């Protein structure tokens, strides 16, 4: 493990071209997919929390089920859609970062929506009463609710990002782990493990954690300032 730490630091300092590329692709993929998932999942989760009909309760259960979709299943579905003979082949998304983002958004959006739903649900009765008192429209009530749980939104984002950066099953199927193109940290770790280079695999794992740590610190600082 100690050699792995040394190797991780040496790798970071050396500015190795391959590693730089892997880190950049990983960041591009994780940031894009987590932000898109947040943009879709946040309003969706709020809407689910505000609804009171039976259909909405059913949708909540559907969403919670989707939270448990195994990444490989999602990856396989995207592969079949995007592959050379698949119905969506004209999009040319197989073995591209954009294709990986699509798969990740499908995986993460239900998680964002589910988490938002449970946060908002706890506030919805109180806020709705206040909103009715001052005569707010439905949309403005939703915005007020979102404002009330802005602290949680950051946490939800970190969950989404963590899921995106740590995922391997779907991205390896849709991305194909192609060097200098779609190889991300997790698929690179798989590849080096298969080559017997365990130390380099662990070193990449350490770098992955460091990246997540940096983002965590940044988001936490913003979260404190915004939510106060």
């Amino acid at each position, binding site marked *: 493990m100690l050699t792995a730490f040394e190797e991780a630091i040496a790798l970071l300092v050396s500015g190795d071209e391959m590693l730089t590329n892997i880190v950049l692709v990983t960041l591009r993929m994780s940031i894009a997919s987590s932000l898109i998932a947040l943009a879709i999942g946040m309003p969706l989760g709020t809407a689910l929390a505000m609804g009171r009909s039976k259909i909405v309760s059913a949708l909540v259960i559907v969403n919670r089920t989707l939270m448990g979709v195994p990444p490989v299943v999602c990856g396989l579905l995207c592969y079949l859609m995007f592959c*050379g003979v698949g119905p969506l082949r004209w999009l040319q998304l197989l073995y591209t970062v954009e294709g990986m983002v699509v798969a990740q958004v499908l995986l993460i959006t239900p998680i964002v929506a589910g988490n938002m739903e449970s946060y908002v649900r706890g506030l919805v009765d109180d806020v709705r009463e206040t909103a009715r008192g001052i005569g707010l429209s439905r949309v403005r009530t939703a915005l007020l609710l979102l404002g009330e749980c802005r602290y949680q939104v950051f946490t939800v984002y970190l969950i989404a990002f963590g899921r995106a950066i740590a995922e391997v099953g779907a991205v390896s199927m849709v991305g194909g*782990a192609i060097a200098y193109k779609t190889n991300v940290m997790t698929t690179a770790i798989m590849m080096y493990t298969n080559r017997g280079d365990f130390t380099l695999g662990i070193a990449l794992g350490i770098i992955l954690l460091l990246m997540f740590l940096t983002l965590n610190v940044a988001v936490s600082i913003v979260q404190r300032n915004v939510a106060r």
Partner: protein
Amino acid sequence: MKKIRIGIVALLAAFVMALSLAACSSQSSEPAEEDTSTPAATTEESTEAAATNLTILYEEDDSLINTYSLLAVNPDAPFVDADGNEVADVAINSEGAAAFIDWMLSDEGLELIADYGMADFGESLFTVNDDAPHYDGDIPQATDETKAIRLSTTTSVNDSGLLDYLLPYFEDEYGYEVEVYSAGTGKAIANAESGNADAILVHSKSQEEEFVTAGFAYTLPGFDSERLSFMHNYFVLCGPADDPAGVADAATALDAFAQIADGKYPFVSRGDASGTHTKEISLWPEDLGITTEADSVADYTDWYTYSNAGMGACLAMANETNAYILSDKATFLTFEANGGIVE
């Protein structure tokens, strides 16, 4: 009301805990059962686990030859989608694939291949076939349309570092970008049949011939066959250094495999329809009836591990369990050099 609610929550929590406990205990009881069902082999294994490590025991037999071929994907191949419907407009970069194959089989490409491994291992990892097809013509520079070449290949070619070493020469000189997708031969070929590759570099004669017969490959100008076999190395039979089955002294590779099967010594199989897997099943005594299908080895689970994993994962598994394993030599040497064999 509140008390009832708390009660329900507590009940639910207890239920979940009971479920997870049950799941845990059933998991831990499974290996225990297996232990009792394999008497001699496992006790031997555990006492000697620390003493030995994976090493090459048998090699250089003609039946262990491992031939690699390049095939260009036919743009007019009978592609079908997941439901079996014909698909006509599959995008294949034929010109890029032709340029890549031409270069690989040019003097420059073949010389580089023959030289690979000398620097790191003191021996070539791949040998160019004496009768390798050869290309003398011009190779066009890349254009925007032909630039991206999708190569579907086997893990052994990629994991041995051959492509990392070769491709920069080709890419820098002609401006192409080769996107390498690597998986076991079976999967690499299936990937091409789904229209996701322009060329394939694989090592399983029977699967390559099926690919050609089905019309997925075509003959490039200047060559006389769809299947361009151009280099080889050898598979090696690896196992624990103390070699309990005595395969190092076997007269032929077939004898070595028969000895392993007779003594029911642990063996790790790729089990993934890769080139290595198809070679392995051709080496077992015929009366065992071992094929690439998992149910063909259902009776041998006490010694035969059908792992469905890549070469590296299988080597690690064989090393941990003191098992025998068939590997291509290039991957084994790279795996060993990278420190994958943990003593």
